[in-house]
């Protein structure tokens, strides 16, 4: 990019560049954290709870896989399996994927656009606490009745007639609180994006991750209310004898599928966009080369719109008009274009560059590898003739899990280890990260790939056992071993995140020589993020600042004055 030459060069910041570390803390750390409306504190809680929930989700998955390892297993009772399944589904989507993407965006993006705070921080704080209470509600339900109506509790199975206990109410309450909370945080981030960008930070200069945040938060503002409306209708059906989803009183059970699959597909796409953008940032930083911004940004917009419109891809076996089904098929297959463009640009940029392999880049490539398997396998799931055979089997399960484990778990560790020095002020132990990566990667492949075999052999999902008469062979046993390996890998990787904070050396503000503005702030950033509001003149503002400082230092050196340390 030769854009830097077409604008006046960035002025070096006045001295001292960054010096204060914020006011002295008067309260104890936990009290300060709990009462903070700072976007960094809120995001830290979101990200930490996402990793805590990742442990729980992996544990639940492991228990279910052990139950399914051999035919007619008696390890878990049917009702326990259903409860684990329902809680696993909600944990994976609402307590891992969503808080992780919202947390990462909410932490990094205000720093990337050079904002000192968010626009309406109290709204973000309310959002955090709604989220926390939603999570507590879900897991507190193990004291009475956890949800047991499946990952997506379809009415009438989730109506009061067929699910008379409080399980579905817990599901509605917790997903509602979490969605509402994350929606409020999204709104805060969105207003920040539109109001508080640093001078010169035009949209055409905004980093990829900032673009992803704009797309994802707008998408979430559209889809989250749809989901909230759907669960409110279900609540009215359950508690006040409403008829939204009751077939015999003018309502329709299909309506629930339309509303919720629209939301879940939108979440799938939000997760994909966020982590593809994070991987894009990682690739740009470590290879030192810029990705073609226009192509990537338009691809992300296309994924958000086209991908969400592909919701009927989940309903190819439902009694809906053929038009819906062909529309869903067309939209899902159209996703090949934006995903293909982004994958091509990411991989070719890495391939043609010289770099030193670090943990974030390795996790990023692992994420691309796993997600490519899942997304490619979704092609078969999205065609009508094949989906009537393979939907609701472990083939569909494996496709979705490859894509989501790739993006959420591997993309999540890539993004968190990339911004780890910024968030904690410490470096990440690379050696342990690489080892945990190896375990997790092998575990993910062994845990998910064999299930394609079980799926095409006809094994249906959500059932707590299968019988030796059904010829599913050892796919399930191998998958259980793989899940165990994945589980151990996740524990090691999370343990590394915890241990590195106390054991590793203090990180500099700009350990990778990144191009975007979050690297201008201290590590970890003070409450007000920046002392000096940066002046953005190109798509690579931090490089401009480094160059300006170098120029100034060389001028200073020629003038004979002592070079000042640079933040």
């Amino acid at each position: 990019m030769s854009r830097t030459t077409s604008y006046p060069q960035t002025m070096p910041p006045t001295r001292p560049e960054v010096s204060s570390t914020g006011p002295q803390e008067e309260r104890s750390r936990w009290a300060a954290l709990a009462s903070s409306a700072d976007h960094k504190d809120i995001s830290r809680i979101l990200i930490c709870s996402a990793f805590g929930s990742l442990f729980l989700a992996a544990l639940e998955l492991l228990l279910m896989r052990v139950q399914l390892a051999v035919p007619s297993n008696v390890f878990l009772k049917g009702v326990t399996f259903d409860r684990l399944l329902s809680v696993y589904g909600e944990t994976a989507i609402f307590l891992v994927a969503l808080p992780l993407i919202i947390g990462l965006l909410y932490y990094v993006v205000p720093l990337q656009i050079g904002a000192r705070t968010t626009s309406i921080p109290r709204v973000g704080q309310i959002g955090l606490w709604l989220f926390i209470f939603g999570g507590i509600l879900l897991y507190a339900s193990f004291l009475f009745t956890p949800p047991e109506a499946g990952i997506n509790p379809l009415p009438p199975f989730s109506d009061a007639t067929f699910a008379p206990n409080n399980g579905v109410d817990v599901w509605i309450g917790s997903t509602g609180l979490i969605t509402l909370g994350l929606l409020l945080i999204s709104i805060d981030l969105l207003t920040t994006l539109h109001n508080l960008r640093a001078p010169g930070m035009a949209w055409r200069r905004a980093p990829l991750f900032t673009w992803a945040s704009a797309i994802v938060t707008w998408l979430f503002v559209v889809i989250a209310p749809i989901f909230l409306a759907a669960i409110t209708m279900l609540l009215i059906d359950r508690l006040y004898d409403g008829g939204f989803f009751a077939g015999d009183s003018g309502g329709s059970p299909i309506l629930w599928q339309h509303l919720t699959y629209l939301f879940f597909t939108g979440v799938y796409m939000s997760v994909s966009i966020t982590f593809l953008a994070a991987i894009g940032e990682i690739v740009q930083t470590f290879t030192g080369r810029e990705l073609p911004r226009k192509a990537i940004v338009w691809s992300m917009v296309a994924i958000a719109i086209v991908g969400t419109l592909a919701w009927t891809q989940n309903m190819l076996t439902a009694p809906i008009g053929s038009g819906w089904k062909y529309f869903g098929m067309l939209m899902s297959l159209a996703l090949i274009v934006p995903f293909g463009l982004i994958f091509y640009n990411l991989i070719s940029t890495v391939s043609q560059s010289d770099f030193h392999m670090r943990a974030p880049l390795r996790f990023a490539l692992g994420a691309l590898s796993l997600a490519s398997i899942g997304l490619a396998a979704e092609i078969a799931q999205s065609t009508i003739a094949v989906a009537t055979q393979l939907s609701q089997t472990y083939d569909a399960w494996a496709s979705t899990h490859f894509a989501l484990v790739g993006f959420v778990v591997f993309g999540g560790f890539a993004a968190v280890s990339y911004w780890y020095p910024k968030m904690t002020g410490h470096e990440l132990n690379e050696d342990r990260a690489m080892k945990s990566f190896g375990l997790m990667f092998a575990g993910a492949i062994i845990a998910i790939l064999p299930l394609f075999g079980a799926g095409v052999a006809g094994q249906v999902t959500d059932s707590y056992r299968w019988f030796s008469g059904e010829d599913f062979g050892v796919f399930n046993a191998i998958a259980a071993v793989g899940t165990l390996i994945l589980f151990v890998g996740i524990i090691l990787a999370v343990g590394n995140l915890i241990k590195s904070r106390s054991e590793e050396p203090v990180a500099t503000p700009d350990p990778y020589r990144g191009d975007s503005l979050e690297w201008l702030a201290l590590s970890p950033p003070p409450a007000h993020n920046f002392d000096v509001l940066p002046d953005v003149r190109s798509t690579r503002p931090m490089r401009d600042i480094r160059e300006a400082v170098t120029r100034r230092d060389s001028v200073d050196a020629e003038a004979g004055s002592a070079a000042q340390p640079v933040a």
Partner: protein
Amino acid sequence: MAVRFVDRRGLNDVGNLIPDWKRMRRRGAASATAIRMARVLLPRSRKPVSLFISLAGVLLAFALNASPAMALSLNPDAASPGIEEGNTLHWILFVVILAVIVIVNLAILRAARPRTRAVSPKPGKKLSQVKLAVGLGVFALALFIVATVFSDKSREIPAINAEPVAGQVKGQPLEIRATGQQWLWRFDYPNASFSYRRLIVPAGVTVQLNLESTDVVHGWNVPELTGKAQAIPGRTSELYFRADEPGTYTNRSSMLSGQGYDTMEIEVMVLPPDEYEAAIEELRKNIQIAQDKVEAEFQASREKSEDAAAQAEEAEKTAGEAEEAANEAETSVAEANNEAESTDSE
């Protein structure tokens, strides 16, 4: 001398942990070829360790499943027209998907190769984004067209059989109603007979299956004949199939419906048309016999209860009489007492 793989920035510390391919190559031409092939797939780095483990695990999973049923069991046996089209489409897509996965992952492996003195990538020429997008669009459109053609074919109603079986209107498919309920399927035949769990259909006859549900959403799932379809309460969805050969297909429902979901089986028994007619006729007779038996038992119990009622009435009557007698006795005693009192007072 062993070549140490030094990162171009001089930061690579993994050189002594990875195999020295050059020294290994000297050992022989045969192994050299294998090594060269391996090098194409697995560039020099530590990464292959996890890759080897995972590939070994997966290969093990597929190798241990080498039973005849498993071998190349990508698709169910096609026992009805329309299934074969779906199977063909799946084979086409399987090859496409496998190619995409292999190409993308080899490109990722190549991109991740460690940078050495020998390997110093230069910024190559990038494809134009527009051309790439157009190419991918053409690819997607081609897939859509192929998928549409095969899906349309697989959804066609099979040709109606010329000779109608009992209960079938000539020129119309044979209508059978399948009703899902927790956790059984009920099948209603045209001759007013019905069966649970096991569906009996004639071979070579086009069947229209009307899917309904009495309670929750159930997943109809017979891959060999119809594939999957949701049975939704308050709605009827039609499925058409024509079983080619007599046989039995056992499957299970595919949507979570509660505690008995894991045992909610569907067995489709395909019989030759005459045997089918005999079977549902026998079913009807058996149901009639059972119905008669129930009726007879009901009548018997009602008669019994009527007798009992009559006896009870009689007993009541007797009891009433006894009561009356007792009352009378009481009155007479009272009268006697009164009389006695009056005599005493006198």
